[in-house]
């Protein structure tokens, strides 16, 4: 394992030197000759370098300054400096499917994915290193769950001492949940089962959150050098999937997830509380500009709040297609994308939805506005570009050649 990760780092550092690469290839051949098992964990296997990465499944796209960065299946990370017309593939240390990417600054960024993977780039997305993975996550979760259980036992003792029946009930329930959580965490750790992260958000180069399946939530205060299990700070005892997280005020964060889950924190994520949800289906994304919040998800459900989530108003999209992601454009209108090639255009007040179906009818996962004003969508079919009116731009999209 150690050998491989060192090798991967060398490959990352000297991508252009084919001589060294072929020498390393020979070395790796020698190495494999003596080993029985040739397969290595995808967490430790660099992504295939290919000129088709922009055509395969991509799951998130973001924009930093004039650059677009997208992540997706097989650990691909691609970036474009010309509004999505041509792309290059970043060097990445693993080939696990990535689900989300976020850049709090022009150079510092994080990408998360399946198997609890967290990658970090400090050069605007061109090269990436691994910060965290499912095995570390499992260990952290077991540690967190154990601490939480001890806390619950202490709480129960306290409640019993006080003799208040309601607190005893609550404490017992808390302990029961904490016990299950610990058992699950121990099972996962033992069986090697890992959970995917589904979104990542950073306040700056230091403070950030990564959230995902089964209520998984991790927090860092040192730019990802260490990640702390944060799930016990969330009011999410059913451990529902957390699908999106964003900032809704100076120190306020909001996250959405499975079964109408909406949580809000007003202390930069230290404490979270549930907000009443206008919908019991799942939300897959959240967009916000201060108190102006849009949440959306299953079967075209879209809700709008102008007061930071106290009251919600349903926006009738006239589409039953699940919505996955959205972006606010520079002119303050919004674009949402989702299943079956559906695109929803909203006006500046998030009203008057206009529903379009893209010709390929493939599912889209994310959207960004390019520097030239066009809309770049990623999903099942890779990268697609549409103009402000929702018409597909048929200009061919190219990709720098890989080593394949």
């Amino acid at each position: 394992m150690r050998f491989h990760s060192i090798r991967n780092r060398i490959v990352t550092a000297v991508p252009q030197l084919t001589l060294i690469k072929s020498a390393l290839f020979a070395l790796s051949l020698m190495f494999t000759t003596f080993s029985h098992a040739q397969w290595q964990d995808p967490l430790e296997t660099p992504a295939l370098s290919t000129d088709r990465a922009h055509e395969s499944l991509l799951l998130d796209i973001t924009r930093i300054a004039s650059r677009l960065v997208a992540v997706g299946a097989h650990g691909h990370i691609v970036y474009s400096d010309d509004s999505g017309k041509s792309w290059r593939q970043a060097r990445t240390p693993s080939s696990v499917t990535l689900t989300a990417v976020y850049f709090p600054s022009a150079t510092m960024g994080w990408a998360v994915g399946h198997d609890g993977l967290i990658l970090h780039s400090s050069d605007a997305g061109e090269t990436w290193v691994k910060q965290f993975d499912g095995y570390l996550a499992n260990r952290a979760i077991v540690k967190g769950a154990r601490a939480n259980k001890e806390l619950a036992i202490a709480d129960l003792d306290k409640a019993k001492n006080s003799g208040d029946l309601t607190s005893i009930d609550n404490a017992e329930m808390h302990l029961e949940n904490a016990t299950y959580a610990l058992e699950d965490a121990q099972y996962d750790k033992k069986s090697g089962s890992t959970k995917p992260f589904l979104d990542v958000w950073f306040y700056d180069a230091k403070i950030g959150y990564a959230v995902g399946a089964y209520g998984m939530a991790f927090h860092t205060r040192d730019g990802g050098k260490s990640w702390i299990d944060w799930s016990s700070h969330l009011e999410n005892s059913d451990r529902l999937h957390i699908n999106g997280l964003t900032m809704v005020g100076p120190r306020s964060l909001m996250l959405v997830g499975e079964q109408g889950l909406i949580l809000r924190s007003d202390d930069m994520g230290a404490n979270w509380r549930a907000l009443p949800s206008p919908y019991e289906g799942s939300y897959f994304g959240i967009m916000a500009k201060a108190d102006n919040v849009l949440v959306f998800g299953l079967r075209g459900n879209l809700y709008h709040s102008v007061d930071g989530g106290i009251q919600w108003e349903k926006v009738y999209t006239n589409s039953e297609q699940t919505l996955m992601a959205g972006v606010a454009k520079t002119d303050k209108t919004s674009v949402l994308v989702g299943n079956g090639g559906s695109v929803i255009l909203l006006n500046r007040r998030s009203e008057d939805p206009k529903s379009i179906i893209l010709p390929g009818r493939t599912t889209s996962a994310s959207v960004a506005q390019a520097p030239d004003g066009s809309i770049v969508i990623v999903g099942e079919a890779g990268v697609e570009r549409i103009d402000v009116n929702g018409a597909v731009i048929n200009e061919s999209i190219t990709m720098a050649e890989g080593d394949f």
Partner: protein
Amino acid sequence: MSNTTNLKNIKTEPEHYIITPESEPFLERVLFAARPLVLAVLAILTVVFAYGLTQIRLDSSIEKYIPLKHEFIKNYLVHKDELGSGLSNIKISIESKDGDIFTKDYMATLQRINDEVFFIKGVDRSAMKSLWTPNVRWTEVTEEGFQGGPVIPATYDGSKESLDQLRQNVLKSGQVGRLVANNFSSTIIDIPLVEVDPDTGEKLDYKELSQSIEEKVRDAFTSDKIAVYATGTPKKLADLLNGVASIGLFFIAAICFTAILLYLYSRCIRGTLIPIIASLIAVVWQLGALALMGFTIDLYSVLVPFLVFAIGISHGVQIISGIAIESGKGSNKLMASRLAFRGLYVPGMLALLSDGLGFLTLLFIEIGVIQELAIAASVGVAMIIVTNLVLVPLVMSYVGISQSGIRHAENNEKAEPKLWKGISKIASKKIAPFPIIIAIVLAVLGVYQSQSLKIGDLDAGAPELRPDSRYNLDNAYMVSNYSTSSDVFLVMVETAKEQCNSYKVMDSIDRFMWYMENVPGVQSTISMVTVSKLVTKGMNEGNLKWSALSRNQTILNTSIQRAPASLLNQDCSMAPVIVYLNDHKAETLENAVAAVKKFKVKYDDEVDAKYFAMDTAGIEAAIAAGELTDVPVRFQLASGNAGIEAATNEVIGAAQNTMLIFVYVVVFALCFATFRSFRAVACILLPLALTSILCQALMAYLGIGVKVATLPVIALGVGIGVDYGIYIYNRLEVMLIAGKSLQEAFFETLKSTGKAVSFTGITLAIGVGTWIFSPIKFQADMGILLTFMFVWNMLGALVLLPALATFILKPEQIIARHKKLHGDISPAG
């Protein structure tokens, strides 16, 4: 003409011998001494083989067409029964010619066709799929979980609302590109077939089934509004077997043309009928003998009777021609036959031996049909040796040639036709350089052109059938309107029992699929990993971010629970990866194979084969004991039509040169053993080599690849082509020994043997030329190439051979050798 001619008066003897100098005259004495006995034996044999003929069967098994000893095929055969189902599907597409499928009329027609198909014998009714079958459903994720139903709702009544509902359901069903065309103008009825006929308990008769579909669906429903298309391997096989029927007609046509030519040539009814009957007897013997030996007829060996017939005719003609000439000189029936036999026995035997041995070099190609073709053709040639070299002269010794025939031969003998006179000028130092220079130029151009010769089938669709055949047109419609490819390359991923759904194996497959999708020529890939990702996504409310493999074994197990049986085997020790290719050009296949091999180096576990047969407990024990670090996995090449074709191409590519070398070694050895002169062998073989080069150039030019069908052509072309040279050279030598100058000798040769050779060349060319009209593409390809080779070999023997002889042959040497061996006795022939 006197009947008292005594045996001892015959003062000629064969110039050359094949076994010993004494054996041939001895054979002649025996055969002609016991004429009635020999004929009686031949008659009995004919009856026996005619009985054998009734036992002959047409074989439609696929195994004979593939190289069973190739590694890919061995790997495939291990899993043959588990992978078999994919091959026995017929797909019928029903197109609405005006507008889309969402009309009341179209749906009503589709329903009627669906019902018709349902009751066709051999259809696996429970697995049949169309918009009208209840197993085609739509699903949708809602707040409550999955929702779904049949695509055509129970409330369907053809109204606009229900058609709108249908349209929504089709979109939700994920069938667009599969059962419904991408442009919504047609839908497919997918018809899986049962293996065994439910009535007879025998293998299902594809021909009958295809006939039912043609009659009950295509003929009954095609109109100006509805078009019907049908594809699938069983349909293709049925079309091929139907194509065989036309071969019978070609055979009759070939007999008729030959008879006309033969009469024009001999002007003698007897001289026409006897070679034809003798050749037909050879065909009966050949087919009968093979049937008695237990061989069956296939799409290749069905062509052998043509060759046997044509070769038989060409040798029969030589004999008849010889008898006519000898009769013209005044010999009686018996004497003329004996003299003709004596003169032609050696070159005839030599020519037939080189044919037969040339065919046997095809045994180097380890593909059943080719090996059986080799055996069938060699057996046929052996039969010709008896029927035409023995039977024809014996029968002629009784019936004799007609007076008109003798006169015709005499006239020929005396006549000095301008054509032959002109050609004979080639054998002079002045003219000879021209054909040689032309030959060299042609050879250079030929070598250049043949650089672009490709291995494999180059046409799209089913290469066995013509590009404009009904089947290939239908196939092209399917490929362009649905998201499918007809070129399937299948890689079998093997592991231990119950381990195909372990994370390591699934992840290896996942990587393999993405790796292959990056290989040029690969369209897409499908495996149980595709299903697993889809289901995992579905279980998580259709969220695209979940379309990845889980490391949780329970989730993995659930995700493949409902995977189609074709994507993993019963005990979960093998999962195929289906790789769809753009085409089946050799380059595409080679790329795919090379890519898989490269991937294997990196991902195959080099562990003992026994681990692949172990069960879970065994593997766990082996891992615990440190013998293994993980579940073993290996990627086995290859199956699917493209995989089999890749194997075939490899076998053919490897055998191509070996076979060519062997066939030339055989003809060289035989010619040299007989004529004992390198100069003679050069005169005979150089024109042959030129034809071989030009044939390859022609293949490159016409876009015909080196494949199962065209490889035998090289052996057949050389083996049969050498006959011309042998006959011409043999006669030329006799004339030279008689003291004539080269040009005179060649003129005499042309008048007799040359005429027979050009006749033979044309007869053979007509025989194989009829194949060009075969609906089966590879038979047509063989026809084109063999016709070309026979005509060019003939021209080579008539034009290039004398030109070469002018510079290469040393008449004085030949005469000196003759004097030394035979003294004053003039050579036979």
